[in-house]
């Protein structure tokens, strides 16, 4: 395995890259408590994309949990494995809360937040480079984002639990386009109220 790409994604910025099957992407939370929103599309047909519900249904059938960790297999809307989490120092990655947007921020945090930066802005800019758009946005993975669902049904965004230098490693099971927003949100604790850079290393043949 050799390093193919090694970049630092600045705080609040988007990123995207293709992974060939077998290649591994390591996402490093350099300073801790930084949510990294991610979406996955089949490189062969972008209309096959990550499906949170397919992923959780398959996990739940074997006693799995409502969040992702090492061993989680991320499935497409055709039920096919897209990537597997093969390394993880954090243990909790959300896939229920979706990505923040300007519009949802107005509802959740007040109309005064409407012009603040948001993950779906990052996603849309990055999707546009591939001829994709808003129809292609679905519920994503939020790496390093702590979103407990409590037995009483409450769903909140709590303080992140990732440590400085913590990482998650994803092995591509098919050729995929990976879309990332280094989350700019400061209205909830997902980034410790202080968005910070991340590092992304792709390795493989």
């Amino acid at each position, binding site marked *: 395995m050799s390093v193919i790409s090694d970049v630092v994604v600045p705080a609040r910025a988007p990123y995207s890259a293709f992974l060939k099957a077998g290649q591994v992407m390591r996402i490093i939370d350099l300073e801790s408590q930084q949510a990294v929103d991610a979406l996955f599309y089949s490189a062969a047909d972008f*209309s*096959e994309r990550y*499906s*949170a*519900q*397919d992923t*959780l*249904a*398959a996990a*739940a*059938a074997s*006693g*799995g*949990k*409502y*969040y992702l960790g090492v061993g989680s297999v991320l499935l497409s*809307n055709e*039920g096919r494995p897209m990537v597997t989490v093969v390394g993880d120092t954090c243990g909790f990655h959300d896939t*229920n*809360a*979706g*990505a923040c*947007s*300007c*519009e*949802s921020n*107005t*509802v*959740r*945090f*007040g*109309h*005064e*937040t409407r012009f*603040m930066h948001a993950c*779906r802005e990052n996603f849309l800019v990055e999707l546009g480079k591939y001829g994709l*758009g*808003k*129809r*292609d*946005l*679905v*519920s994503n993975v939020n790496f390093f984002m702590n*979103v407990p*669902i*409590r*037995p*009483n*049904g*409450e*769903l*909140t*965004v709590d303080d992140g639990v990732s440590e400085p230098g913590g990482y998650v490693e994803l092995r591509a099971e098919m050729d995929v386009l990976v879309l990332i927003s280094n989350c700019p949100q*400061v*209205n*909830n*604790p997902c980034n*410790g*109220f*202080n968005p910070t850079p991340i590092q992304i290393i792709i390795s493989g043949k």
Partner: protein
Amino acid sequence: MEDLDRLTPAQYRARYEALQAAARGRAVAPAVAFSEIDPALVKKTEVIPPGGYVAFRVKRFDVLRVENPAGTPGAALFLWNADDVSERYNAGDTLKLQWTTNLTAGRVLFSDMGRVLASIVADTGAGHDSIVGPNTPAQAGAKRNGRDNLRLAAAKFGLTRQDLGPALSLFSRVRADDAGVLHYEGAPDAGAMVELRAEQNLLVALSNTPHALSVAQEATGPIALTVFHAPPGAEDICRGFSPEAVRGFENTDAGFA
């Protein structure tokens, strides 16, 4: 006015914790009785047989009463704004914006645009799940399944799998235990019922197919549908349910002003 991009972490935290505390104070949903439907207001009735689906349009302030007389384990639902189909049901926003996975009377279904697609105006409380959602061929095998039925319904509007995201499984109770394991709580009681009021002109896809975690992977009874027109009154249970709902309706109503 304070510059929201330049507050301190402590100031951001204080704002968030105030919103969270307020949300926790209203976690219990009101009980709501179903009223008699005036036959003169009925626009449509349908009975969807096991494995079937329907695709139809409704106008703003039409109400969909969905009945589950035999307690079949789930009914898959997806919604689009009929006037702009790129605006559609958003599971993540629906849960996150209301701080809960418990969708019942008083709660609403949000689009991806910070607007309300539909309000849950009455509910027997069978539970409606948007975490795991409808079944797919992975659970149902060759039997009719929610994913394919929703795609077929979408196709009747000229839409494709690109136009679908995580969906809602009505009449499906799923709970996360203390360890985070998801549990399906069993088929609903016979006679379960829910009413959804359209808050925009909508395209509706409704499928009589089970939840993904149901033991039975084939529908066990019909789903009955009644559409009637009933604009909100002054004392509506959804429109004033929470500050989040108020802002969602402000965003929605602006499009109809």
